[in-house]
């Protein structure tokens, strides 16, 4: 039955349009999965960062920090802190007297940890960018194909009546609509997450400086 609904239009569309819409649906589902996942990951990381900086400010010495943080939850700042802690203890076991260049080594190891953590936070974010860029084109492909079909149908039927052409074009345009519906949230989310990621990275850098400072004390 013709209802004029989007779904019934899709069902009467050609195989290419259906395939395009299916692909776009997969893109959309995955990009929304990433959006939800990243939302949770970022808000959790941010919360951890705030708590970490607050604790490290209040703690007087590095040893006290260690006692507070031992057995803490698994998060980026915890890992940052414990790589520094491990490095420090290995330096101490190698040469018990504190040498001058241990500070550089610690700084390097913290930098490496930060870049590792950044990579972890950025992971799969690129899929959002891919979706944002390709989804409209995939939709456009479906539309162009559908319009090609519509024109061919005019040729076969020999009527230029709008009633013959319009449904085909309308079906074809659905592909572009879905492509845009997939791409727009992906673009928004990608930019939003990039901004948030910057904040998180700067927080991690601050945390590493705090760690170094507390070790110096």
């Amino acid at each position, binding site marked *: *039955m*013709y*209802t*004029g*609904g*989007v*779904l*019934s239009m899709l069902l*009467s569309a050609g195989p290419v349009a259906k395939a395009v819409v299916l692909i776009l*649906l997969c893109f*959309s*589902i*995955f990009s*929304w*999965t*990433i*959006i*939800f*996942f990243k939302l*949770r*990951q970022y808000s*959790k990381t941010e919360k951890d960062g705030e708590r970490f900086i607050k604790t490290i400010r209040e703690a007087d010495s590095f040893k006290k920090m260690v006692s507070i943080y031992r057995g803490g939850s698994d998060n980026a700042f915890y890992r940052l802190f414990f790589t520094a802690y491990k490095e420090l203890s290995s330096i101490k076991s190698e040469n018990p007297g504190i040498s001058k260049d241990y500070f550089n080594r610690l700084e390097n190891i913290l930098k490496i940890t930060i870049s590792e953590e950044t990579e972890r936070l950025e992971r799969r974010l690129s899929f959002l960018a891919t979706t944002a860029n390709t989804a409209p084109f995939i939709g456009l492909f479906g539309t162009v194909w559908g319009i090609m079909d519509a024109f061919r*149908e005019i040729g076969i*039927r020999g*009527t230029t*009546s*709008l*009633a*013959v052409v*319009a*449904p*085909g074009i309308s079906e074809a345009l659905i592909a572009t609509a879905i492509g845009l519906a997939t791409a727009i949230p992906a673009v928004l989310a990608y930019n939003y997450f990039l901004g948030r990621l910057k904040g998180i990275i700067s927080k991690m850098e601050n945390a590493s400086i705090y760690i170094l400072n507390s070790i110096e004390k």
Partner: protein
Amino acid sequence: MREESWYKMLVFSTILHLVVITAVSIPIKKPTKKIELSSTYSVNLIGELAGSISGQPQGLSTLTGGTRTEGTLQKKESEKITRPQPSRKKQIPERKETKAISISKNKLTSKTSTHSNNTLTKDELIQLEKRIGEIKRKTNYLDVTQMKAQSDTGKKGPGSGSGIQGYGLPVSGQAGGKPLDLVSQKYIFDIWEKIKEAWGLPGSYTTKKDLESIVTIKIRKDGRIIDINFEKRSGNRLYDESILRAIRSIDPLPPIPPSFNADTVEIGFRFLPGDIS
């Protein structure tokens, strides 16, 4: 974050998409249903017909009271003929019956009124035959033979048409009960053929059974269509527009044959997707 929460998010996202898809597809169905319901006023035209022809399979024959239909008929000045579309085979024999009955209605009013419900006795059948003979004599046109030949083949053919479709019935002028002669019938038939020829729909529509529009067109003496009126809309805009376009494209028609005896003629057509040629 742990990998297992990926699956959670994937499920969540899939559910979200399903919800959105159903939300998009459901509310659009509702308004079209409303349109279908609101088209009940259209029944009147055919209702009168069903009253005058007993024993016809009628899809729309559950009519609302003869009095109302009478009223609408009196309002309309011009001669009104309704010929809801039929399959050609079935239509012509039925037409004859129609005529016969409407004549017997004139002359033997008491008898037909008592037999208004679907059963024709043997006597009546004999009388019908007689009436048909009379009409043939009266309308001594060239077309008669042609029409007769068609009707004969029609009778022999298997009556496989669906019960709802087969009822073509030209009837009742304003004065009530003057049956149409064959020239007029042929005129209407030709118009219907023209409309069908001009009517174009995308292929996917021809399989949609539940689209139905009833359109009346008013034709001036010289053959110009002066009014197109939807008695019933199908509820599908594209479908209705395609009908309108088809009717407009056949304007002007050949002049009305003198047998109509009227300045304007109003003809009703029923459009089903299956009619398209």
